[in-house]
């Protein structure tokens, strides 16, 4: 078939080749345009407003790698007061505690709610005792509500401080909607924030305007880069804790803290 003794063969072969090259170029250009559109629609990594960065913020971020603020130093929170940390987290307890526990969770995730129910009192006690620095590291993983709830959490953390944010975090899990809805409205989220101790005028606008929407997007990317592909994921000193059930996960977390 490769040999062709028709006199027209060279011309039609050349014509076919030209058409082929043209079509391939067209397809490559289409892929290039599509790629440009997709990457411009992905805002991941864009500059974001992060909780604790507002000038009026009640939540001064603490860097877990350095000692937290001196209580006598003006508005700095007392050591051990819940505060924004590591850009995306809420740190509870002493940042200098011997062990750091990070809880990656999604406000929509039912297993996370179960983990919260099973672990909250013990983990917060361990943090209060100074045995571990507990970092809640919520990120939006599952659906639209995950993102709205996390944005609200960011707003509360920024405007009302770590103590109120911790309470709000607990309330969000205690009032978790079903994965198939109906989901809380913006008003419901504001009401929940107020129940946690926030002033409505401080948080309503941020919740309605998704003020921390970009922070939510960047936080999902950060979790993904740290290898977190499931919720809940627990890191003790940066190492993932495993468990075949929620109870096992809680037990393994507590024993990892004891051994840490």
């Amino acid at each position, binding site marked *: 078939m490769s040999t062709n003794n028709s006199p027209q063969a060279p011309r039609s072969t050349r014509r076919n080749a030209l058409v082929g090259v043209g079509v391939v170029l067209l397809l490559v250009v289409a892929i290039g345009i*599509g790629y440009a559109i*997709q990457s411009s629609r992905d805002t991941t990594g864009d500059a974001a407003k992060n909780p604790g960065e507002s000038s009026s913020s009640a939540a001064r971020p603490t860097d877990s790698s350095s000692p937290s603020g001196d209580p006598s130093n003006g508005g700095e929170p007392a050591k051990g007061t819940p505060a924004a940390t590591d850009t995306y987290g809420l740190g509870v307890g002493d940042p200098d505690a011997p062990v750091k526990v990070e809880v990656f969770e999604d406000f929509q995730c039912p297993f996370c709610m179960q983990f919260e129910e099973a672990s909250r009192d013990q983990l917060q006690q361990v943090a209060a005792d100074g045995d571990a620095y507990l970092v809640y590291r919520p990120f939006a993983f599952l659906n639209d509500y995950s993102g709205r709830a996390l944005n609200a959490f960011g707003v509360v953390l920024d405007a009302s401080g770590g103590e109120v944010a911790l309470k709000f975090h607990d309330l969000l899990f205690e009032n978790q909607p079903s994965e198939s809805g109906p989901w809380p409205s913006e008003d419901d989220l504001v009401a929940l924030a107020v129940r946690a101790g926030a002033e409505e005028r401080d948080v309503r606008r941020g919740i309605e305007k998704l003020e921390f929407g970009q922070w939510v997007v960047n936080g999902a990317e950060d979790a993904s880069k740290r290898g977190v592909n499931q919720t809940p994921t627990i890191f003790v000193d940066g190492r993932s804790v495993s468990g075949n059930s929620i109870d096992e996960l809680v037990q393994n977390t507590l024993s990892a803290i004891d051994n840490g």
Partner: protein
Amino acid sequence: MLRHMVAWFALGARLLVGVVWIVAGALKLPDPAASVRAVRAYDLLPESVVPVTGHVLPVVEIVIGLALVLGLMTRLMAVVSGLLFVAFIIGIASAWARGMQIECGCFGGGGYSTDATGDYPWEIARDTGLLLVSGFLVWCRRSRLALDNLLFVPRFVHDR
């Protein structure tokens, strides 16, 4: 006669694989960030190429799918389609072998799944089947109702 039937079979093969590609790509388009995370979850590619892969893959899938449905550059597209299926089979098999519990992200989504281990065999079987159909399209060269038939002059015009 047989040649005739093969060309009709090839049309069916084009539509099958083409529609799968279009659906797979279209479901990933709405959330490019999630697509990037799904690629990253496999932990196979260096981080420097992960975002590009996540952004371009759904577009490539749709272009291949459309080209196959229309019968445009069918053989070349079938080759690319087959290579992609080989890559996906390797990715899923390696996630399985490493004991990872991730959704394949084949039709959007991605990341953790509780029953991932149960899904891997079926996903690999599906991709292998589609790989074979792609291979058939490479082999049979000609199909019915393809744009190729209008665009390209048959090389053996005298071979009636």
